[in-house]
C-alpha cells in the first residue's frame, strides 16, 4: 500500500475499534496464513504463529503510527515470529539430526492444487528460508519490492539481488538441475 492511500481502517484500529480489526483480519487472513504455512511447512506451527501475529496487532493497535502499512506490519511480525520459533527449535532440530532421525514431511498441500502447483510448492520447500520468504512475499503475496525490503529489514538494492538469486534457484529446482531437491519436487508431483 503506498503512502498516498492510507489504510481506511487504520485510524479506527488505532482507537482499538473491534470492527476495524475484523475488517483488517478479513482482508489479510488468507495472505498471512498462506505465507506462514508455506514458510513453516507445518500447518500447526503456522496456526500458532498466525494467532500470535494477530494478537500482537490487537495489543499494539494503539501504538500503530498514522502512516503504518498494516499489511507490511503483519508480514514483518509474522516473519519475526517464525524467526523466533526457528531459534527456539534449533536445539531440538540439532538433536534430531544428531540422532539420525528423519524430520517430518512438511509438504504443503492446498485443496485443488494441480501438479504444476505441487511442483512449485515442493521447490519452494527445498529453498532456504531467506529465499523462500522472499519469493513468498514478492511472488506469491505480491508485495512491492519496497514493501518486501521493509518487511525483511534490508535495502531495496539488496532485496533485488536476493530476488534474482532466489528466482534463479527456483528455476533450477523446477528444471531438475538440483538432483537432491529436484527429487523432492518430483516426488511431490508423482501420483
Amino acid at each position: 500500500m503506498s503512502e498516498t492511500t492510507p489504510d481506511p481502517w487504520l485510524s479506527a484500529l488505532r482507537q482499538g475499534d473491534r470492527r476495524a480489526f475484523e475488517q483488517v483480519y478479513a482482508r489479510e487472513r488468507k495472505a498471512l496464513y498462506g505465507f506462514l504455512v508455506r514458510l513453516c511447512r507445518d500447518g500447526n506451527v503456522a496456526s500458532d504463529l498466525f494467532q500470535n501475529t494477530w494478537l500482537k496487532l490487537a495489543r499494539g493497535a494503539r501504538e500503530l503510527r498514522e502512516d503504518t502499512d498494516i499489511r507490511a506490519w503483519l508480514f514483518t511480525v509474522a516473519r519475526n515470529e517464525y524467526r523466533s520459533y526457528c531459534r527456539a527449535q534449533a536445539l531440538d532440530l540439532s538433536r534430531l539430526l544428531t540422532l539420525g532421525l528423519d524430520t517430518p514431511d512438511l509438504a504443503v498441500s492446498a485443496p485443488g492444487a494441480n501438479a504444476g502447483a505441487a511442483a512449485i510448492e515442493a521447490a519452494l520447500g527445498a529453498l532456504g528460508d531467506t529465499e523462500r520468504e522472499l519469493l513468498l512475499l514478492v511472488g506469491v503475496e505480491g508485495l512491492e519490492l519496497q514493501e518486501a525490503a521493509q518487511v525483511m529489514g534490508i535495502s531495496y538494492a539488496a532485496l533485488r539481488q536476493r530476488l534474482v538469486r532466489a528466482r534463479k534457484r527456483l528455476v533450477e529446482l523446477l528444471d531438475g538441475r538440483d538432483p537432491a531437491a529436484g527429487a523432492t519436487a518430483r516426488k511431490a508431483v508423482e501420483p
Partner: protein
Amino acid sequence: MNPLNEELSSLRDLPELEPPPELDRLVIERAVDVLADLERPDAVPARLPRVEVLAYTAGLAMYFAQALNVAARFLARVLSG
C-alpha cells in the same frame, strides 16, 4: 513496479490457503478480549487527590456536627417543656 513480476507469475497462480474456521474464531475471540482489555484503563476512575479527600471529609463532619447540635437543642427544648 516489480520487473520480475512476469517471471514470477507462476508463483501468483498458487492456490490461496484458507485458515481453518476454528482458527478464525479463536483469533477473533482472543483479539476482541485483548481490544476490550485495552479500553479498561480509561474506565478506571482517577485517584482522588489527598487534600480534596481531607477537605470533603472535614466538611461532612462539620455538617453532621451542626445537625447533631440542632437535634440536641430541639430535644432540650422539648424536655424542658
